[in-house]
């Protein structure tokens, strides 16, 4: 009996905190999204806010833009991060400085990261200046628009810069825990280095890649700072929309904030769930 309960007992403290603190918040947020917010005099439950938000033509654009940003940035971060982790792992003969410095961007808060990418990529940024002094461009306007642009390049670059080391750190941690003799065994069975990576290393670190992907995807899907600071005026990502509604001093706008947030939450859970399901399917049938 105890054996059966043991995992639940071990999860209990975490669940008490997550559920305990979260449920209250989520329920209140949900009520507000339904227009129930007595303290400012909204006393009726209604679906009108949902209807309004969902029917707003810019909502779909924002939704697509959000998905696009977080998907592209997360996928690229994962690829570069894994590449980085593996190459550090490979070239590690003795512990080098690179093992510490690659982690630096993790320490940098997102808003600073935005500032930093801004410094690099605007038409008067460091990159433009370098190109100018090398003679590749002759005036600012020739430098492509990478910040506040509708392709969200600035946002994506910021997320990649911020999350690549995160992925690399997680993957590197796991890599160094894998029995390296397994790679030897694979080499010995005729796998070349690439195959060792794809067939042995990658599948073994895949669970960690998956969960870090989920983390960075949901983070970038739900956070407003970077797209707010570097995004185009139109379309805005959903979190930016929600944030702008939230900061509207007219509190009767609060239900819109909550509607957008509830939709965001719902889709994040859905995507995470779908992703982990498909991942399971793939890993079952690739044999």
């Amino acid at each position: 009996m105890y054996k059966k309960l043991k995992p639940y007992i071990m999860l209990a403290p975490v669940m008490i905190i997550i559920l305990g603190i979260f449920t209250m918040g989520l329920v209140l947020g949900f009520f507000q999204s339904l227009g129930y917010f007595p303290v400012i005099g909204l006393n009726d439950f209604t679906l009108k806010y949902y209807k309004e938000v969902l029917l707003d033509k810019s909502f779909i654009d924002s939704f697509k833009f959000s998905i696009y940003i977080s998907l592209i940035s997360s996928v690229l971060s994962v690829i570069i991060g894994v590449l980085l982790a593996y190459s550090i792992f490979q070239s590690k003969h003795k512990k080098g400085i690179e093992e510490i410095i690659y982690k630096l961007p993790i320490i940098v808060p997102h808003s600073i990261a935005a500032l930093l990418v801004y410094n690099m990529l605007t038409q008067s940024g460091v990159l433009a200046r370098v190109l100018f002094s090398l003679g590749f461009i002759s005036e600012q306007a020739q430098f492509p628009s990478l910040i506040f642009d509708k392709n969200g390049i600035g946002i994506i670059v910021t997320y990649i810069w911020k999350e690549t080391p995160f992925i690399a750190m997680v993957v590197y941690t796991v890599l160094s825990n894998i029995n390296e003799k397994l790679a030897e065994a694979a080499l010995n069975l005729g796998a070349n280095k690439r195959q060792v990576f794809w067939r042995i290393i990658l599948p073994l670190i895949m669970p960690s890649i998956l969960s870090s992907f989920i983390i960075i995807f949901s983070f970038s899907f739900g956070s407003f700072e970077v797209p707010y600071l570097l995004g185009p005026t139109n379309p805005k990502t959903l979190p930016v929309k929600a944030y702008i509604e939230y900061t509207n001093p007219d509190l009767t706008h609060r239900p819109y904030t909550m509607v957008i947030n509830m939709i965001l939450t719902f889709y994040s859970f859905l995507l995470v769930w779908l992703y982990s399901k498909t991942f399971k399917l793939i890993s079952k049938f690739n044999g």
Partner: protein
Amino acid sequence: MKRNSYISKVIMCVIIFLLIFPLGVVLLWSFVKIWPWPNLVPRDFGIRAFEYILNPNNKSIRILCFSVCLSSVVTVITLLISIPAAKALGVYNFKGKDFFKILVLAPIIVPTIAVAMGIHVAFIKLGLANTVLGVVLVHLIPCLPYGIRILTNVFEIIGESMEMQARVLGANSIQTFIRITLPLIAPGLLSAGSLVFIVSFSQYFLTFLIGGGRIITFSMLMFPYIQSGDRMMACSYSIVFILSTLVILLIIEKIVRSYYKGENYFYM
């Protein structure tokens, strides 16, 4: 073989350069007075921002120390409760495991502002608002997912057999935890710990709300400057922020490593 590791060295260096170079620019910016287009080097330098930060009147350094302590406490608590949870998720098979795995990500998935007000109300009711305890508790929320996920991965790899061996040799569960589990997960603990520290250290929205201004952290001082676009200030604060985090992390890493290294010499 040789050529391969050469290539990976090059890849590594390029990526690391791209990651680090912008930080160099931040460092530079914290001393820049003016840097007009198209100069490659700033026109004028100054130390206004650092003077401000070091000025005791605005308590930046005191608040920095407090923040470090606060985040350290949060980190320790997060890790302590993440370890059993991660072990359960990583080692055992039980009903609803997948559900729990997604649930622990909830704090990342659900936007903070969606739950902030509810949390605030709850904390006021519980008498936790405006207290250090309340802030510590609320920091656990965004920190836990990182702690749990990373440690879960580690537990999935190391499994349970070493712990079993220790139990068989007469170690009780606490001894097993301290002598076997901890050292085995130490690298993962370092990663998780540093990330959790960072997440807590850079929290500001929840700190505002629950700390209510009673508890002021370094990020609360820093963020207005980032928003106001005072690049010299923002970059200087960032540099202080980054350096202090780095120092803390290095100290932790040193302590952890020396603790387990030290065992080799005076283990009896």
